[in-house]
C-alpha cells in the first residue's frame, strides 16, 4: 500500500511536470487569439469579455495552478526523490513489454493498416495477434505478434503514405500472408487449447460480420472500401445477391 502511494506520488511528479509544460505552451498559444479588442484587417474584433481567448485563458491558467498544486503535493510526499527510482517508475520489465507490444499493435493497426489495407484482413490480423500474443502472457508470443502487425503496418505506411496510393493491393497481400502465417503458427501451438483452436474462426467471422452489417445493414461508410476482400464482397452483394430480392 505504502509502495503504491509512493509510486503514485512519483508519477504525479512527472505528471505535474508534463501538465505544467502543456499549460504554459497553450497559454502562450492562447495569446495568438485576439483578446483586447484588436483590429484585424481594419475590423475591430470583440471586447475582452467576448473574446474567444477569455475562456481558454481561464482554463489553462486554472490548469497551471492545479498542476503546481499537484507538484507541491507530490514533492511533499517524496515523489520528486523517488521519481527516477524503480518505485517511481512503477513498471517492471514484463509490464513494459506488455504495454509496448500492445501500443505497437494498436499504433500500426490504426495508423498503418486501417486506412490502407482491407478492413477484414487488417482486423483479422489484429484479432489473431492480440489473442495469440496475450492469451497466456508469454513474452515471446507478444513480441512475435507485435512484429507481425508492425511489419505489415510499417510496410503499408511507408510504401503508400499519400492518400492517393491507399487503393494499392500489395500491402493487402503482405498482410494476408502474415496473417495466415501467424494463424498457422498459433494453430501449431494450440495443442488442444480451445481458445487457440477457435481463434481462426473468430478472426474471420467477427470482422466479416461487422463490416457487412455496417456497409449493407446500416449502409454506412467502412474503412478502405476498395480493399482486396471487401471489394469482392461488395461486388457480389450488389451484382449477384441483391438482384435476387430487388431486381
Amino acid at each position, binding site marked *: 500500500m505504502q509502495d503504491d502511494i509512493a509510486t*503514485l506520488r512519483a*508519477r*504525479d511528479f512527472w505528471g505535474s511536470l508534463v*501538465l505544467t509544460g502543456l499549460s504554459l505552451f*497553450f497559454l502562450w*498559444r492562447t495569446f495568438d*487569439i485576439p483578446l483586447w479588442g484588436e483590429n484585424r484587417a481594419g475590423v475591430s*474584433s*470583440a*471586447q*475582452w*469579455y*467576448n*473574446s*474567444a*481567448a*477569455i*475562456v*481558454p485563458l481561464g*482554463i*489553462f491558467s*486554472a*490548469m497551471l495552478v*492545479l*498542476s503546481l*498544486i*499537484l507538484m507541491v*503535493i507530490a514533492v511533499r510526499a517524496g515523489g520528486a526523490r523517488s521519481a527516477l527510482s524503480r518505485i517511481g517508475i512503477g513498471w517492471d520489465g514484463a509490464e513494459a513489454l*506488455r*504495454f509496448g507490444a*500492445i*501500443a505497437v499493435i*494498436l499504433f500500426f*493497426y*490504426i*495508423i498503418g493498416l*486501417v*486506412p490502407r489495407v482491407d*478492413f477484414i484482413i487488417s*482486423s483479422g490480423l*489484429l*484479432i489473431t495477434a*492480440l*489473442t495469440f500474443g*496475450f*492469451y497466456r*502472457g508469454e513474452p515471446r508470443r507478444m513480441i512475435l505478434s507485435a512484429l507481425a502487425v508492425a511489419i505489415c503496418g510499417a510496410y503499408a505506411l511507408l510504401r503508400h503514405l499519400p492518400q492517393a496510393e491507399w487503393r494499392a493491393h500489395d500491402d493487402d497481400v503482405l498482410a494476408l500472408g502474415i496473417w495466415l502465417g501467424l494463424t498457422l503458427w498459433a494453430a501449431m501451438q494450440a495443442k488442444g487449447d480451445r*481458445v487457440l483452436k477457435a481463434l481462426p474462426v*473468430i478472426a474471420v467471422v*467477427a*470482422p466479416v460480420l*461487422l*463490416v457487412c452489417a*455496417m456497409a449493407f445493414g*446500416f*449502409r*454506412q*461508410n*467502412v*474503412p478502405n472500401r476498395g480493399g482486396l476482400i471487401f471489394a469482392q464482397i461488395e461486388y457480389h452483394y450488389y451484382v449477384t445477391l441483391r438482384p435476387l430480392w430487388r431486381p
Partner: protein
Amino acid sequence: MDFVLTQLAGFGSAMSALIIDPLTYIYLIVSVFLGITFGALPGLTATLAVTILTGFFGNKVPLDYSLIALLGAYVGAIYGGSYPSILLNIPGTAASAATAMDGYPLAKAGRGGEALGLTTTASFIGTLIGTLALLIFVWLLLLLSQNIASPEKALLALFGILLSGTLMSEDLVVKGWISGLIGLAMAMVGLDPLLSEPRYTFDWSYMLSGFQVVPVLMGAFAVPQIMDGMRHMELGQVTELKGRIVPNLRQVRRYLPTISRSGVIGTGVGALPGVGEDVAGWVSYGVGKSVSREGDKFGKGSLEGLLSSETANNACIGGALIPLLVLGIPGSPPAAALMGAFKINNIIPGPTIDPEIILRVVAIMVLASLTMFVMGLFTARIFIKILQIPKVVFLPIVMVLTTIGSFSVGGGINDLYLMLGVGFVAYFMNLQKFPIAPLVIGVILGSLFDETFRRSLLISNGDLSVFVSRPVAAILLGLNLALIASQIPLAKRMFQRLKRKAVS
C-alpha cells in the same frame, strides 16, 4: 391532478406507439442482451456498451430505435455487472463493486440462485423508481428551467464538471478537476461558437470543426480498457449456481422497504450532474449499513446489503437522465455517451427539448427494464456461460467494433487518429488515477460553458455581477465556490473549528 393525468396520457400514447411496432421488440431484445453481456464480462463497462452502440446506432437508424438500443444496453449493462460480482467476486462494472461484498459470500453459501433472483427483481424495481422520478421531476424541472438563462447555464456546466471531478476521484480531488479542465480545453479546439475565431487548430482543416464527440468517447473509454485488459488472467472458478432464480413474492415483499429506500437514494445520486452508478451503489450500501437492523452482517452475505447497492445502481439510470434531458448536463458517464448520441442526431437536450422525446425515453426505459427482468430470470444460465469467456478473446473484437463505429460516425480516418491519441492519453491518466469521466463531461459541456459564459458577459457589457445579481445564478455560484473551498486545507480546518465550536 391535471398535470399528472396529462403526463400519464402522454406516456400511454408513447408506450402504445412502441408496443404496436414489432421492430421495437427486436431492438429491445438485442440491445438488452448485448448490455447484459457487456456488463457481465469483467473488463467491459456500461459506458463502453453505450459508447460502442452509439457508434453503431447513433445516427444510422431512426431516433426511436437508436434510443431503444442505447437505453436497452444501458439498463442491461448496469444490471449485468451483478453476475460476475455474485459468481466470481469480480465486479463486472464499477457500479457493481458494492454488490460483490455480499453477493459472493451468498453464492459461496449455496444461495447464488436466490441472490441472482432478488438482484434481478431489485434492479427491475430500481429502474422503475428512477423512471418514475424521471417522468415526474423532469417536467417540474423543465418548467423551472424556462427561467434559466446563460449565466445559470454556464455555472451549472461548471458545477457539473467540478462535482464530477470531486466525486469520481479515487486519489486526489485535484486530479479530478485537472481531468475536467483537460476535457474543457479539448472542447476549445476549433472555431469558437460566437465569433468563429479559430483556436488551437495548428492550420489543420480537420481541427476547425473541433474534436468529434464519438471518437473522443471511444478513445477515452474503450482504448484504455483494451490496453489494460489484455493480460493473462486466470478467471476464478464460477461458483456453482444453486437454488431457483425466480424469487418468491413473500421475500420480495419483505425486502421492499430496502428496495424502495435504495431506489430513492440511487435516483437522487444519479440526478447529481456527473456522478455515476458506482457512487450511487456505494452511497446506498453505506446508508443501508447504518440504518439496517442487520447492518453488522453487511459484507458477510447479507441480502439487504446486496439489494442496497443493486437497486441503487439501476435507479441511478433514471436519475442520471433528469439533468441530461432538462439541462443538457449528463448525470453519469454512460449518460455522457448518450448525450453524444443526441448530439449526432442534432437533438440538443435542455429546456428546449421536444417533450415527446422525454415521454418516449420514459416508455423505452419501462420496456427495457421489463425485458431485462424477463431475461435475467429466464436466461441467466446463458450469461453465466458467457462469463467464462477470457478477456483476451473479446477485447480484440471490441477494438474492431470501436474502430469501425468511430470511423462510420464521422466517416474519416482522422477520427481514428483522434480516437487513438485520446486513448493513449486516457490510459496514462488511468495509470495515474486521474478519473476519465470528468474529462468526457468537460468535452461535452465545454462548448456550452464557453458560449453561455461569454454570452452572459456580452449582455452585461462585461459586468461580472451578472453571476450574482440573479438569484439562481447566485446560488449556483455559491455552490461552485463552496465545492472548491471544501477542498482547500485552510477552509477545511476553519470549517472543522466552527463545527467543534457549535458542538461545544
